[in-house]
């Protein structure tokens, strides 16, 4: 199947998110989930808030399957640039599927403080939710059969690829 270009999807998200940045005195904080979400978040930051610092979350400490997956010390640790109390957070990830990653990310965010609001921006929503989590901003919705895996490759260039899980050992 043909996959949409990342550039076009980022542009679509940028348009949709622009109103969030209308008030100069309360700018949202853009936070990406490692690794793919950080790449997309960085693209959005360059377009929407070039002067701001990016937040990054490594959610491996918060995963509900931690005891099976373990840690990945090669992934950078989390860092949020500012005090997040009473700020709006734009949480960014590349692919939304089960919703578990987003849940873990939100648990982590609340260990840093109490944001006013969190909105979720996703490049690709492929459905198949396992918990009630929905995105506020979506680049594209794709119907894939559950045996295939979609992944963002990057950071330069950013490209979406699919793999069939049957011949993909993980």
């Amino acid at each position, binding site marked *: 199947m043909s996959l949409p270009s990342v550039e076009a999807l980022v542009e679509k998200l940028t348009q949709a998110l622009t109103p969030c940045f209308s008030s100069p005195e309360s700018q949202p904080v853009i936070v990406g989930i490692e690794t793919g979400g950080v790449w997309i978040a960085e693209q959005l930051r360059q377009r929407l808030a070039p002067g701001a610092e990016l937040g990054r979350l490594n959610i491996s400490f918060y995963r509900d399957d931690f005891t*099976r997956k*373990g840690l990945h*010390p090669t992934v950078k640790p989390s860092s949020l640039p500012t005090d997040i109390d009473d700020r709006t957070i734009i949480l960014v990830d590349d692919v939304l599927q089960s919703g578990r990653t987003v849940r873990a990310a939100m648990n982590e965010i609340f260990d*840093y403080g109490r944001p006013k609001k969190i909105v979720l921006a996703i490049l690709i929503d492929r459905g198949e939710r396992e918990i009630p989590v929905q995105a506020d901003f979506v680049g594209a919705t794709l119907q894939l059969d559950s045996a295939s895996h979609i992944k963002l490759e990057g950071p330069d260039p950013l490209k979406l690829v699919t793999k069939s899980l049957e011949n993909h050992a993980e």
Partner: protein
Amino acid sequence: MPSSNIQLDDNGKLRHFLSIEGLNREILNEILDTAESFTSVADRTIKKVPILRGKTVANLFFEASTRTRSTFELAEQRLSADILSLNVDTSATVKGESLLDTLQNLEAMQIDMFVIRHQDSGSAYFFAQHVRPGVSVLNAGDGQHEHPTQAMLDMYTIRHYKQDFSSLRVAIVGDILHSRVARSQIHALNLLNTGEVRVIAPRTLLPVDTESLGVSVYEDLEKGLDGVDVIIMLRLQKERMRGALLPSEKEYFRKFGLSQERLRLAKPDAIVMHPGPANRGVEIESSVMDGAQSVILQQVSFGISVRMAVMSMIVGQSGLQSGADA
């Protein structure tokens, strides 16, 4: 491949943490990298991550400890474990209960992980051999054998200040004979490919086979300190001295104490470390301990992240629980 080393599971991942000897460079580096990712947890509003949520950790200290025990407890709490800390020297063993009985009674309380300090060398291995499958043991110091988490926090400290081990000269000074810390450090420094490891001590405080550990031995402190990047001072373990190993503490300081003057023999940017507790004026001059080159208090802070790293690697890799796929 099945492993004969009980510290590792069939995939070569950590299952217990008993000694540096028997581990490999990959695991040591993984501990250091993982510890680095935990340092930021201490800067947050809520200094906790949920990795050990629902797990119970028992800290069994058959021997007194302040730093090791409190940093283990903090590490466990920051990983959200439920913890039970026992000073066993004041409890049932005094009443004649055997080590194995103590262990079995605690296992009946569904403990997932044991942190053990004991005066007998090999006691942590003994525990690890007898726990149920799925229960892990961490050695917090066993007799004169090893103190592996202390060695790893020392390696973390060295890497933090000096980066690359292969170009370093590291001197370990003092009571090597009684020191489980030194034994663990020497194994770790060698595994991490340290340029040169020197031990500096009077003959009476050196084990007979010191050279076979792959270190250079100096009986003269001033010669040994020449040009080193890292100085690790060891505590004079007065409580373990049997017989006349030393003339007097004063004499020991005169020959083996680290003074400002002697510190100048090392490289100008050398760091001074000590596992604590330090005897001021016996192995180290007060002004050196509090001086600009001392990183002794930083070692204590790093100890928390390193202990968090080891515990999370044990839980995350060997899987204290097994479940169906997500």
